[in-house]
């Protein structure tokens, strides 16, 4: 069993344990699947592999737990989708994913107080989306959870803006994590 890690450009290179399988004008990057039940450590190891690949070129990370029998099956998994995947690779080129989660800083309060907080969180989201190449709101237990596709050069500016927004809204708690591979932008929407 091998696990698919990411889709890269046709010339994407990989060093062990990652293998590069060319198919339909893209490269499927994969590795031998770990045996048995997954642990949190396995996930971080996988994340580290994908992040190292990210340093070499644009990447579409594959959803966790995508297994195929062998390299032929890995090639078949993207056959016929090359053009679409190359377009997606262009979309994420030179950019990383930053996650932004916003919660009330203190007790949530009554409905009216929460409505004001949600509006402030959405305004903060818009301000950050203006710096990003692409943004998507995701379902989650927080007041607001979003993923932003941010150009590497704009990362400092983005994080600076997060700090400014946090400073301007002491009633909100804003958490920004990354840089991540473009997990939320790998599929066309």
């Amino acid at each position, binding site marked *: 069993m091998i696990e698919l890690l990411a889709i890269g450009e046709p010339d994407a290179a990989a060093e062990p344990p990652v293998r590069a399988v060319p198919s339909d004008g893209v490269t499927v990057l994969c590795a031998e699947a770990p045996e048995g039940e*997954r642990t949190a450590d396995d996930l971080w190891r996988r994340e580290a592999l994908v992040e190292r690949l990210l340093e070499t070129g644009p990447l579409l990370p594959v959803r966790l737990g995508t297994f195929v029998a062998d390299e032929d099956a890995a090639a078949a998994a993207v056959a016929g989708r090359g053009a679409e995947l190359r377009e997606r690779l262009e979309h994420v080129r030179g950019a990383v994913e930053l996650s932004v989660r916003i919660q009330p800083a203190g007790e949530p309060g*009554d*409905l009216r107080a929460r409505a004001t907080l949600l509006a402030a969180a959405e305004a903060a989201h818009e301000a950050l989306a203006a710096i990003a190449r692409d943004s998507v709101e*995701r*379902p989650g237990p*927080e007041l607001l959870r979003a993923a932003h596709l941010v150009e590497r050069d704009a990362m400092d500016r983005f994080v600076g803006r997060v700090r400014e927004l946090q400073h301007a809204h002491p009633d909100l*708690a804003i958490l*920004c994590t*990354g840089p991540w591979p473009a997990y939320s932008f790998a599929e066309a929407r």
Partner: protein
Amino acid sequence: MDKILAGPADLGPFAAASEPLGDALSRRINADPENVAQGLAQLVLTIVELLRQLMERQALRRIDSGTLTDDQIERMGSTFMELDRAMTELREQFGLEAEDLNLDLGPLGRLL
């Protein structure tokens, strides 16, 4: 791996919303013959919880747009509190924790 680029000094507000990775990995809807009622209750309550969160979010947007009277807001507030209490009671009857009311939708992420 340290991935926090910017965040409040106190991460408390996010603690309730994030669970240990191991818990998320082992989460399953329980469909054993003995526990089928609990498994079904978990599924149904998850859907109800989703609707509750959607309704609440919609309500927050309407309140913020200023189209509701104080009286309406007051009534909505009590309704949500009552709903919250009813959900907690049902959960306890079936021995479910708040974090059990969620589903992993694969590529779509977590339901709630």
